[in-house]
């Protein structure tokens, strides 16, 4: 392994350089800014609509809508990461440089994560408005944002994997959005109930949801329960998707 990868510190330097280049390229292109702005308009408008209709000084409806929204929105940010490099053949130039697939994947993942953080920063007017209008539960807002960040990080890692598989951005989008939405929906109580009813044990849906869906863990965070198991769940899935992307890019394993 060490023969194929630079030392950790050098690897981190290379990943940072790739992240910086990719973030600049994404902001320079038309797709990422348009997706970011459109998404921000959508979520802010949707929240304001609900806020003025119900007059509640809290963000729970906003956070509950985020997992499914992110499952569709984040693939639009991640689809170009490797698919674009494959399509334009710059992937060959990238891997003529002394980097391993691990550094490349991490660098591109960090760039996508940077865009996602920009999106989250764009939603800050919502808690800002709540602070002006009343006294919201700041703990719930912070743990909600943590949950959104973690579920987004996992879905982005899935997007990186999808982008590493294909040279077509549309295919990369679908390959990330479809399983991402499925993972989220498997945790929905209605889907769980249907799946539970399909087997004699009456717990198939619940078992699947507890193992692979990020939704139950996310909902725990919304309730203010920040447990180690939650962090392990998101960390493990994120690491697995990134590892799989690096394996896919390693030509010897292709």
């Amino acid at each position, binding site marked *: 392994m060490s023969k194929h990868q630079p030392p950790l510190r050098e690897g981190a330097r290379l990943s940072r350089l790739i992240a910086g280049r990719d973030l600049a390229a994404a902001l320079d292109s038309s797709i990422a800014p348009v997706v970011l702005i459109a998404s921000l308009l959508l979520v802010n408008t949707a929240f304001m609509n609900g806020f003025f209709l119900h007059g509640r000084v809290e963000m729970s409806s906003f956070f509950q809508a985020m997992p499914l929204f992110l499952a569709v929105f984040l693939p639009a940010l991640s689809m170009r990461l490797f698919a674009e490099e494959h399509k*334009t053949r710059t992937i060959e*130039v990238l891997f003529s440089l002394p980097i391993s697939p691990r550094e490349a994947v991490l660098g591109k993942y960090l760039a996508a994560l940077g865009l996602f953080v920009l999106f989250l920063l764009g939603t800050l007017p919502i808690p800002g408005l709540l602070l002006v209008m009343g006294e919201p539960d700041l703990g719930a807002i912070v743990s909600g944002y943590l949950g959104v960040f973690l579920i987004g990080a996992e879905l982005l890692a899935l997007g990186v994997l999808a982008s590493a598989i294909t040279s077509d951005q549309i295919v990369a989008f679908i390959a990330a959005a479809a399983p991402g939405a499925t993972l989220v929906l498997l945790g929905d109580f209605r889907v769980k109930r249907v799946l539970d009813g399909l087997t004699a044990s009456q717990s198939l849906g619940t078992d699947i949801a507890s193992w692979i869906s990020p939704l139950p863990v996310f909902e725990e965070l919304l309730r203010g329960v920040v447990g180690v198991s939650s962090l392990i769940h998101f960390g493990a899935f994120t690491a697995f998707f990134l590892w799989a992307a690096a394996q896919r890019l390693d030509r010897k394993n292709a």
Partner: protein
Amino acid sequence: MWILRSIQWGARGPVESASARCYKSDAKRGAARRRAKERHNERQATGFKSTPLTPPPSSSKTVDPMIRVVDVTKSYGDTVAVQGVSFDVAAGEVVGFLGPNGAGKSTLLKMISTWHSPDRGKIQVAGFDTTEAPLAVRQNLGYLPEHNALWDTMTVDRLLRFIGTMRGLSGAQLAQRRAWVVDRCKLSSVLQKRVNECSKGFRQRIGVAGALLHDPPVVLLDEPTHGLDPMQVVAFRDFIRELATMPITSGSAAGTAGRAVLFSSHILAEVAAISDRILVIREGKLLLDERTEVLKDRAAAKNTTLEELVVGQMAAQGKEVGK
């Protein structure tokens, strides 16, 4: 002198060592013939054909080869792209890789650059194995891929800085190397332009600049003159020749007298104008490995053109391969 050359030549790949057999001294001729026959039989078994009774290269280089390709085979599904190819390239040597489209030139260069792995055989660059130590190989390699893809939205200056920093250059060293490639590749007028605003010729030069930025001891160029106008082609040929003899000033190979340059083309005149040696590949098999001057002499002796000689030899070898 001939004996010395033959011994050096004999240490090379199978094509060369076989082709050297008629130049051994009388005392060693019998043993050499036996060895050559054994190797010839071995090659027949792998479908590898030698160049018939050609003299060894008159290279005076005695250093270890910077590129060593040994019995390399690569397939994509049912298609065999490269089959049992062996050759060496020494420091200071310019070797031209000639063959029609789809012959396997780019596949071999991709394998040498570590982008693809051989299914069988070994490739070493600057002493490092491409599958065992790909990062060390890339550190010692400057590579201009086919199609010369570049990150289009970056300015030329930012692109060169990015490649330089990725290669571990920084501060004064990066500034010095950047200034050198900008000067040699004549890029000063487009430095602040985006890559996608540059002409095809400039893009090719930007690719070459990126490949040479870290002063590599081994340079691979896949169709390097593609897209250049005739004036640029002539200047570029001179540049490649100069590149091979220019001492390396930085990196782990600092002090090495000259680079190993391996470039591909499907234009014989171009290969003949630049190379010390010509490798001809067709249908994934190496048909010819010969010094350019020898081929030119042979063409002159037969009162024919180099093109006719090489095409004739390719046709003859092709028939043997097809048997």
